[in-house]
């Protein structure tokens, strides 16, 4: 038991180092003066030069703005569809086509992105042909097509999160409300939604992050002129390392770290409050 514990503990620390050293090195070298990212120019560093360059970079800023818009729309759409799918799968009992729906919702989780991207693009091309043929209406690929594609592969994640949350408690509260005469829609908004709110929120954040981060699917379904942030980063990184990208990465890491720590803190406080209330209820 003892040796085993030592081995797995040390592997844990090795693994954590493996996970964090690259990120920390990226942060570290964003303050480097030299254009050669990894050669530390100790005479003129640390410097905020690359941060200045980053905020003057029109291409990156407009791409980031587009990415934020896409990610926010995606997350909202994915939450609506994913919550409905999760509700249907865990609460509506057996109905015709249930297994098929379950398959459809979990398949995007593991589908290689190139396949999703290619198939979505071919769908949009076919729709384009159809629309121009029948209605004489042409649409451009861009914001809308990216968002639809992102919703499709992110809603699977929301569904899984919501479904597993719904599975963690039984439907007696909902049944009670129905018995008391509340209509199903009201039960959903008054009982179910508040209960699964944490799952919905984390689903939203998950969908936002996945959309914000996606490169492959976006490359397929975006049109000319609509470049998201990952596309811009990818095209720069391909040419080699760039200190501006390091600065951008540092900001993103910082935002995520703050967000995660904050949410962990809030969740912990809520947990404590709940425990206290339970204790008081038990005592009273």
């Amino acid at each position, binding site marked *: 038991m003892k040796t085993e514990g030592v081995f797995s503990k040390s592997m844990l620390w090795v693994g954590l180092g493996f996970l964090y050293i690259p990120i920390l090195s990226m942060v570290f070298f964003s303050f480097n003066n030299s254009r050669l990212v990894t050669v530390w120019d100790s005479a003129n560093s640390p410097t905020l030069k690359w941060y200045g360059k980053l905020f003057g970079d029109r291409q990156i800023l407009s791409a980031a703005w587009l990415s934020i818009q896409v990610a926010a729309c995606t997350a909202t759409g994915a939450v609506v*569809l994913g919550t409905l799918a999760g509700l249907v799968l865990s609460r509506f009992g057996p109905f015709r086509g249930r297994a098929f729906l379950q398959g459809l919702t979990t398949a995007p989780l593991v589908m290689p992105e190139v396949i999703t991207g290619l198939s979505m693009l071919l*769908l949009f091309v076919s729709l384009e042909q159809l629309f121009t043929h029948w209605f004489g209406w042409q649409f451009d690929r861009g914001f809308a097509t990216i968002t639809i594609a992102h919703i499709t592969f992110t809603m699977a994640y929301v569904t899984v999160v919501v479904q597993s949350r719904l*599975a963690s408690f039984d439907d007696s509260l909902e049944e009670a409300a129905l018995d008391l005469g509340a209509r199903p829609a009201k039960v959903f908004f008054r009982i179910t939604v508040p209960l699964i709110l944490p799952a919905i929120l984390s689903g939203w954040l998950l969908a936002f992050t996945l959309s914000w981060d996606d490169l492959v699917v976006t490359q397929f379904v975006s049109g000319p002129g609509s470049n998201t942030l990952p596309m811009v980063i990818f095209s720069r990184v391909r040419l080699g390392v760039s200190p501006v990208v390091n600065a951008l990465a540092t900001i993103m890491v910082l935002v995520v770290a703050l967000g995660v720590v904050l949410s962990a803190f809030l969740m912990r406080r809520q947990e404590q409050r709940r425990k206290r209330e339970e204790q008081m209820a038990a005592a009273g």
Partner: protein
Amino acid sequence: MKSASRNLPSRDSYGRVSPLWLFLMRYGPPRWSEYVVKNWTGQRLVIAVPYLWLLIFFLVPFLIVLKISFAEFSPLGRPPYEPVFRWLEEGALQIKLLIGSYVYLFNEPLYVSAWFYSLKVAFFSTVFCLMLGYPMAYAIARSPPTQRNVLLLLIILPFWTSFLLRVYAWVGLLKTDGLINQVLFKWLGLVDEPLAMMNTSFAVYIGIVYSYLPFMILPLYSNLEKHDNTLLEAAQDLGAGPIKSFLRVTLPLSFPGVVAGSLLVFIPAVGEYVIPSLLGRTDQLMVAKLLSDEFFLNRDWPKASAVAIAMLLLLVVPIMVFQRFQNKELQAQKK
């Protein structure tokens, strides 16, 4: 009180059902409330919305890919393939299916080597992920509950930061004048010349293990955490050493977690695009790169579609197995 009873059938401000409403429910139309619940038309609507979305934007696209994979490539057309279905003037439907793209997949050496290389990379990355991830998950599951959440948070945190940027971080570490070479060559003098690590299979393995490690650890952890400690104690009471009790008790019990984690790494690794294009060999393609080159550079949509269909067929068994496990997990949670 008076106003409450006049306001029929409703509940008072405390949410209690008014007596008359109860009366109606008992003596009114038969099984009135059940009727509302069971045959509520809104229910069908609620099912239909996500269903339709997934059918239109997930299933139909695959049928289109399947169709185009059998089409004939016409380099100058817009879109660059001949229609598969065509109405002839005599009112007949002409269907023209070519299997040329598929034949090409299995005969062209470039393609065959890309398939084998992708499978090899995915397989060994999964093994490496397991070798690193299992002890990590085990250590987390064995640590005191207060530490567990922090450790889990540390595992999940990189997952929330950009995947692309995390792969990019390795470019800075692995390149010839990168950090690793500086440490090994300049500072420690362990190697005689800077190691060439960029654009090698080694870099791809590093990238995949690095990016997918959380996917391996989390299912393993959620499995290992549930283990009953008394089993291990029993094994030890019966004289099994730590290694034996691990091999005979813990490892077999954690098999579902191993399968789920391995599939979560293996399946996306086969179709990985970003990591090999940033870190990988330039002389050896992986399937995903092949697909996107065929599509964007050669504009050969039928061949790209055939690659996609072949990849899907290859992955369909692992995907089904994964879904099996996913469903089991959800069922287990329900109990």
